[in-house]
């Protein structure tokens, strides 16, 4: 399969950007133009629900805000705790949802499996059937996660895809791909980099980016990369 033939697969363009990219826009940020059928249908549905008093515009706005502002950072906080507290880490690996609840991170719908990177195993997550993703921990999935290219290729040539993200793994490391195809959701517990011994949880959370928790990259201590 040719690597970059799919123009919808845009992680290269993402990586070239030197500014924060808004992956969490409520309406997939296509440029100006007439609204799509789905946008019109969604808008009509919202207006009906508002007219019937089922939801208010404010509730919808607030919900989108939570997806954009709050959910994306929860995963980093949870994994930073796992890095600093071995007992919490053990509980997270045992029952992800219960461990998150301890931190006040309530995963309403999500049954969470945390998978641990070790010197011998690297984990990476995909949903080949659609775009299942731990939204309540990481916010909305990025465009590349939903692309046909990533979904088709990471299951059958994971090492090539990881390399395109800048993650090169030696052959003695087992690559363990998780197809998130049914009711479970997944988060990767990366290896804590050297040189972060005295860091606070807040500092650690900074390097636990979304991509490290999906497993396409590994966290780096600044100055080491």
């Amino acid at each position, binding site marked *: 399969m040719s690597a970059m033939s799919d123009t919808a697969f845009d992680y290269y363009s993402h990586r070239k950007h030197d500014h924060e990219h808004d992956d969490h826009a409520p309406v997939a940020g296509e440029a100006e133009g007439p609204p799509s059928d789905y946008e019109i249908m969604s808008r009509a549905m919202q207006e009906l629900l508002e007219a019937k008093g089922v939801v208010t515009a404010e509730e919808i706005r607030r919900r989108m805000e939570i997806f954009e502002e709050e959910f994306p950072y929860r995963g980093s906080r949870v994994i930073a705790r796992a890095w600093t507290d071995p007992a919490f880490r053990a509980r997270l690996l045992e029952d992800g949802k219960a461990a998150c609840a301890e931190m006040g991170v309530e995963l309403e719908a999500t049954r969470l499996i945390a998978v641990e990177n070790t010197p011998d195993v690297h984990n990476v997550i995909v949903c080949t059937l659609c775009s299942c993703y731990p939204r309540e921990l990481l916010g909305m999935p990025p465009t590349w996660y939903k692309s046909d290219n990533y979904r088709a290729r990471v299951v059958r040539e994971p*090492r090539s895809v990881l390399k395109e993200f800048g993650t090169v793994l030696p052959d003695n490391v087992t690559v363990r791909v998780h197809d998130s195809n049914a009711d479970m959701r997944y988060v990767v517990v990366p290896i804590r980099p050297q040189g972060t011994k005295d860091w606070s949880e807040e500092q650690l959370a900074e390097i636990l980016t979304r991509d490290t928790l999906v497993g396409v990259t590994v966290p780096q201590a600044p100055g080491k990369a």
Partner: protein
Amino acid sequence: MRSKRTRTRKALPSTYTPAPGHRFNVGDRVVIKRAFPPGHRRTPCYIRGKEGVIERICGAFPNPEELAYGFDGEPAKVLYRVRFNQKHVWPDYQGPARDLIEMEIFEHWLAPASGRAQTAGPTQSG
């Protein structure tokens, strides 16, 4: 808000028969059924016919093949995580033989594997 009343009014009973308990245990070798029925299936086509090992039992969940069409998804089906060797899933796999792929498979898609083991046990990668 989804009220209980609305749900019971809309959902029809399942067409599936109950499957009490769980048929497979962690470490059991299984084959994913090689079948291509129409409809909403959560078993990826690329894994059908492949052999793997039960990695964990996730519990019982409403049957998505029924939920997708407005049925109530009952009785719940037992969901497993199954581990496969990449070399076995993709004969032309380029990476090392140790590489793994895992996914969730409902019990009614599983059959016991027979013959020699082709798939690593759950202890291989810890």
